[in-house]
Structures are given as structure tokens and as C-alpha cells.
């Protein structure tokens, strides 16, 4: 008689690098049920998802525009997760950065871009880090679960934004809840004329590069990984777990803040309530898909940017709801997480 038995055995390295690819395929098979239900042809849908956005220069650039905040929030989350600090608050930290940018952008009126833009970036970074500070302090001083506190602060910041936009920053002429336009000198320059691709994309690429550099080439990075992978052992060998986590949490918040600066200074030029359709949460998906590695995060952010852009195309071409893109993303996360666990096992056939 043949029996199947499951035993614990880690998958070989080559298999692990294939996991994201397999996850994408599995996700497409699973979600094709929904596509069919929505009345479309799955193959056509996935062609629009994956190929159409790259078929013209305009939409290909739009993929990069969409990817810009995702690269940053993905890097932010990956940075914190590497140190075992589960920062779910990139969304709120992004808004903190956006608030700072909206304010600085007005205050810096009259300054040349070479001065104003670095101040915008620094201000957004500090604001994001400050928004991450309470949770980080509660975590290292009182062992309060950061998953809860960072998540809750996301809602708090939305109220702050709403209060600002309906109060002091309300547009005096139109009465819309949107902040005054930032100064021309504070706006990010376009990288390619007549596109929306702005300086923020380069900043994001630079941050991805720094993510790689810090994690793999610096003592801080090694300490962070040690804390993330084995907190007790890290403490035993003399790593200051508290200081390392605090650093990781604040830098993570700062990077997320940069994403907010990019959206204000590169896309909208003022602050509005829905400036992020959940970039911070998508950052968690991206960091996880990317295996917390810089290159992985970069690719995952571009991929999600592609799907986001594709979702618009699919919806327009095939008449399916645009939310299908969100479903694909969410399914992709679940499948990937599942595969990260399943890769540790294999099925053995035993004949008695």
C-alpha cells in the first residue's frame, strides 16, 4: 500500500528563488475563477495585467510612477522587518511625511530647488521617524506589541490630516479640503518631460540601494539581521537589541515619510485626504514578496506597480471591476506566505 507522509525538509536554494514566480502562477490560476465570474477571459485579463502596460512608453512610465511610493514603503517595511520589528504603520508614517512636505512646500516659498528639495526630503524623513517613535519606544521600553500600536497610529494620522484640511489648511477659494499648493521651487522636477515620472523615483532607487548597502555591508545591518533572526542569541553575544530595534523602527518610519514627500512634491503638489490608497499596507506585501532583500523589494514594487497600472487597463478593456487588481495583490501575498511555510516540507511516498 502506498502512503503519503509529510516530513520537514527545507527546499533547495534554487527552488526558493523560484518561489515568487511559482506564487505568481498559482495566484493567477486561483484568481482566474474570479475573472471568469466577472465575465472576462482570464488569459485576456492577464495579458492586460502584465503585457499591455508595457506596450506603450506612456503607460510604461506610468508603471514607474505607480512604483515610486511602493519602492519606498516596501523598503521601509523591509528595513523594520529585517530587525524583527513588525512595522505595520508605513501608511501612517507616509502621511506624516506628506503633512511635513505640504507644510514645508509652502514655507519654503522663494527658495531655489537645490535648497528647498533637500529640506523637503529631510523634513519628510524626520516626520515619518517621529510618527514611528511612540510605537518604537513602547516596544523597547515596555514590550508593547508594535503590530497593534503602529497599526492604530495609521488611523490617528488620518484624523490629523482631516483636521488640518478641514481647518487651517482648507483651500480658502474653493473650500475643498486640500492644502495650499506648494511652491514651484519645492516641487520635484520631472525626469521625463510630459510624463508624471518625477525625482521621487530616483530617490526611491537610491533608498533601495541604501537598503542593500546597510543590510549587507554595515555593522548596523548585521546587528539588525541578528536581532531579527535570533533575538535571544543576538542579546547573548552583546548586541543591544533595544537600540538596534529603535534604530530600525525610526529609519523605517523615515523612509515611509519619504514616500509621502514624493506624492505631495511629485504628483499632487498639495495634501489631500486620499493621498495614499494604502501604499503603506502594500509595502508589507512588497517587503514579504521580496524576501526582505533589496533587489527582491525592488522587483516586487515594480511588479505591483505593473499590476496596479494593469488593473486600470483590464477594467477599461474588459469591463471588470478595478478592484480585481487588489484581489490579485492580496491573493499573491497569501499564496507567497503559504509557500514560504510549505517550502520547509516535502511529501514522501512510502510503500509498505
Amino acid at each position, binding site marked *: 500500500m502506498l502512503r503519503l507522509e509529510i516530513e520537514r525538509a527545507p527546499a533547495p536554494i534554487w527552488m526558493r528563488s523560484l518561489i515568487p514566480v511559482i506564487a505568481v502562477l498559482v495566484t493567477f490560476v486561483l484568481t482566474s475563477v474570479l475573472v471568469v465570474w466577472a465575465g472576462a477571459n482570464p488569459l485576456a485579463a492577464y495579458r492586460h495585467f502584465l503585457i499591455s502596460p508595457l506596450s506603450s512608453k506612456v503607460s510604461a512610465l506610468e508603471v514607474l510612477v505607480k512604483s515610486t511610493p511602493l519602492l519606498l514603503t516596501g523598503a521601509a517595511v523591509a528595513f523594520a522587518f529585517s530587525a524583527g520589528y513588525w512595522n505595520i504603520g508605513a501608511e501612517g508614517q507616509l502621511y506624516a511625511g506628506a503633512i511635513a512636505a505640504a507644510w514645508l512646500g509652502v514655507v519654503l516659498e522663494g527658495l531655489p530647488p537645490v535648497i528647498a528639495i533637500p529640506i523637503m526630503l529631510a523634513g519628510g524623513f524626520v516626520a515619518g521617524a517621529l510618527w514611528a517613535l511612540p510605537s518604537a519606544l513602547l516596544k523597547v521600553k515596555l514590550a508593547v506589541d508594535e503590530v497593534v500600536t503602529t497599526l492604530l497610529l495609521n488611523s490617528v494620522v488620518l484624523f490629523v490630516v482631516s483636521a488640518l484640511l478641514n481647518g487651517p489648511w482648507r483651500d480658502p477659494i474653493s473650500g475643498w479640503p486640500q492644502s495650499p499648493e506648494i511652491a514651484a521651487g519645492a516641487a520635484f522636477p520631472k525626469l521625463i518631460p510630459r510624463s508624471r515620472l518625477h525625482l521621487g523615483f530616483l530617490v526611491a532607487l537610491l533608498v533601495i540601494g541604501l537598503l542593500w548597502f546597510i543590510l549587507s555591508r554595515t555593522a548596523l545591518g548585521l546587528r539588525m539581521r541578528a536581532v531579527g533572526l535570533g533575538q535571544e542569541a543576538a542579546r*547573548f553575544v552583546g548586541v543591544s537589541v533595544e537600540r538596534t530595534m529603535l534604530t530600525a523602527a525610526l529609519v523605517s518610519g523615515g523612509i515611509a515619510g519619504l514616500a509621502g514627500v514624493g506624492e505631495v512634491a511629485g504628483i499632487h503638489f498639495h495634501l489631500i485626504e486620499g493621498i495614499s490608497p494604502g501604499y503603506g499596507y502594500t509595502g508589507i506585501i512588497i517587503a514579504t514578496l521580496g524576501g526582505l532583500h533589496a533587489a527582491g523589494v525592488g522587483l516586487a514594487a515594480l511588479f505591483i506597480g505593473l499590476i496596479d497600472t494593469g488593473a486600470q487597463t483590464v477594467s477599461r478593456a474588459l469591463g471588470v471591476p478595478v478592484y480585481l487588481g487588489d484581489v490579485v495583490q492580496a491573493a499573491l501575498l497569501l499564496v507567497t506566505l503559504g509557500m514560504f511555510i510549505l517550502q520547509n516540507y516535502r511529501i514522501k511516498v512510502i510503500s509498505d
Partner: protein
Amino acid sequence: MHAIQMRGITKRFGPVIANNHIDFDLMRGEIHALLGENGAGKTTLMRILYGLYHADEGEVRVNGQVAHVAAPKDAIQLGIGMVTQHFALVPTLSVAENVVLGYTGSFRVNPQVARQKVAEAAARFGVEVNPSALVRHLSVGERQRVEILKALYRNARVLILDEPTAVLVPQEVDMLFQTLERLRQDGLSVIFISHKLYEVMTVCDRITVLRDGHVVGTVDKAATSQAELARMMVGRETFGVARQERKPQGEVLLRIENLSAVDEKGLPAIKGVSLEVGAGEILGVAGVSGNGQTELSHVLAGTLKPTGGRVLVGDRDLTLADPAQVSGMGVGRIPEDRHEGAIGELNVAENLALEYLGEFITAGMLDHQRIRRHAEQLIAEYQIKASPTDRMRTLSGGNIQKVILARALSRNPQVVIASQPTRGLDVGATEYVRSKLLEQRSRGAAVLLLSEDLDEVLALSDRIAVIYEGRIVGLIPAKEADLEQLGLMMSGAREGIRVEA
């Protein structure tokens, strides 16, 4: 009348024989102790009886009938219940709900009926618990009573208690013994796993002593003494390694003064420990696990803050130092749990460098080449079978321990704290680790060896301290060590002898 008969039970774990043709009989209405050191095979034997392990050879009879116990549910049907040190209770449910959980016979549970039935059972068996109390509000002793009641509620006639007193305070121990006495009068049988002699002599009718997977013998309480039991438990024919000649003791390098600390639950774990270790000396701390060794090693490693007392290395006070300061002061540390000292997902070179990261930074960046060369050098010196880029978790236990050893000893520390340095290692690795510790001693380091392996303590130590319930209950030169006396002290015999050396 026999309640349980186990015949020729053999259980192997890879090359290790945990139970070697064990015969064990349990009569109806008796409390029968299984006595032995850590790793003697007591728990394995009981796990086989309860269906958690399957014997490779041998036969189990319950009430005279051959029984096939494939899983705990079979054991429960045969009237066997087991209470381990790790309770399987749901803290947010009430006592009654916990007791009936999984034994309700229907999908719906009427809380009132459950409470009433559990209250009746508690009264019938004389187990004092409040059925409506939430488990999370109960003390450890009360939780244990709930576990016992749970087994009795499932009609257990044989109760296995795995080191039931390990988690209890003395008053709770007395209550437990009263409960057991009552159960015996009702005709139930109890198997009491322990390594504490006076408890065994207090509550049990017969005692079966295991050593290294064999039965040494079964004796009636009336016909034995603590001394005989201690001899049966630890008695050995030979020692593995030749005993060391004692060298004249050098200056004191490690001084522990009146040290106290609490465990994870906040209960006192070490209570006023004072020890001195001189240059060129190995001081062995013998003791059964769970008597404060873990906390002592954590305090000395800098990972646990003591509640009182002092730790001095040379003339530097390290009482409140963090691990980095302890390491920087020339203390080499080998942790009790290998996973506490090594990070499985980092590679060997990173693990070796992590403790001395400052040495590997050039212009603010990690010097990967130097980290690698450092690793290659230690791998060669300590005969580690691994490459610098291998992840730690892919190494064998022996090689992980060698990496930790290399890291701890490579800076020629003045003081070495070695906790259970050979636990779980094969013979070759064990000999290697021991030889390295002796090398440190010859070099002039002060070595504090905490070990549950009495052979190891006897083989390596110049002096032996015995720790029991957080106190040093004896300190003797290794030359004068007498197994029976050590055994008595380690098991907290109340007539325990104190010797100062």
C-alpha cells in the same frame, strides 16, 4: 493485582537507546516512583505507556490484557492519564470547561451541567478546585489539580505524574501529596516521576530506579534508604576521562558573592550563591536540572539582572554589566542552550564575528574579507566541519557547539562560564569540548562548569559544588568526591551533609 505491566520495553532514538529492555510493574492502589537522573529514560518510558511514543520492542499489559496504545486517546480509554510539567489548559476558559473539553460527547456544552458534574467529580476524588474559576486566575498548584481532575474525569485508574513537584512551592507539594494519598485509598495507581529522594521516600510505596535506559532495581520504601537510592541512581563503574591532578590554586579570578536572582515567573531561582574560582581551576557545579543553574549562567553571561549580590571578575564589578561588557571584560561564555548562542539563519562567519563586531569594521563598513579569514582560521583551529558561508542551522549539534566554543575561547578569556557544554553531543564532540575546557585550565583561566552530567563534573573539576533549589548545598574537592554523598546532596536529601572545602 497488576494495573500495568511493561515487559522488555526498548526504544531507540537514532543511535541512542533511551529504554533498554525495561520491565516495569504497577500494582493497583500503589504510588510507584520512577527515579533517575536526567536522561535516564523515565519520561520516555511513560510517554510510551501514554501512547506518545511507540516502543521498538516489548509489550504493555493493562489489567492483565495486552494493550496496543497507539495514541493518547487509546491510553485514556484504557484508564491511563498523564500530567506533564507543561499543562494543556486553556487559560481563558473556566476550570469546568477545561475539564470537560474534548470529553463532552456532544457538540453542545451546557455550562451549568458541566460545572455541576465537575464539582461532583472534584468532591468524589477529594481534589479541591473551584469549577467556575478561570484557569488564568489559578496558581500553578491549582492548575496542576485541574490537570489531575481532568485525567480522573476521564475515568483514569492509573495516573502518570511527570515531575509534578518541579513547578510547585513547598505548601503546594504537601497538598499534592495529600491528594495522591486520597487517590491511593480509592484504589487508584500513581506513577510518580522524580529525582528528588525525600519526596519519593515520603509519598511512594515502591521505587523503580532507572539509569542510562536500564532498570537498576525496584525496591520497597520500607526496605530502602535515601543513601541506597542515591547510590542506585548515580552509581557508576567507571568514569569517562581520567581525573585531573589538582594544581595549586591561583588568584581568584571569578568571585560570586551572595548572588540572588528570580526565574521567568518571578520566583526566586538562586538564593544567596557564593563561589570563588581561581586561575587554573575548574569549579564544577553539579545538580539536577532546574535547580537554578540556568539563572546562574544567565546572570554570569549578563543576560539576566540579579536581584542581589555581586559578581566580580578580577577586581572589576560585573554585577549589572550587559552581555557586551561581560564579553569585553574577558569572560568567555558557552550558553546552556546552543540556540541561545548562535543564530541559525546567519552564516558561520557572521556568528563568529558578531560578538567582536568592532574588530571587523573598516571605514564604517563591515570588512567581509577579514570576517571570512577570521572564520577560516577558527574553523581550522577548532576542527569545525563547515565552511564560513554555511548557515548555522545546517550544522550538526557538535559543530554548532564548536563554533560557540571557538567564539568564546578565541580571545583567551580569563574566566570561562560553560553551561551544559556537552549536552546532546556525541562521544567525539564531547571529548573535544572537554579537552578544550581542560586546555583553558592549563592556560590559567578560571573555569566555572555548570553541568547536569555527573561524569563530566567528576572528570573535569578540581572542586565540586552542588546546587539544589538555588542554594549551594555542598562544596568538596573532586578527589574526595563520593558518589553517594553527591547523589544525596543533588536530590536534596534532608539529612544532606554540608562540607566546606
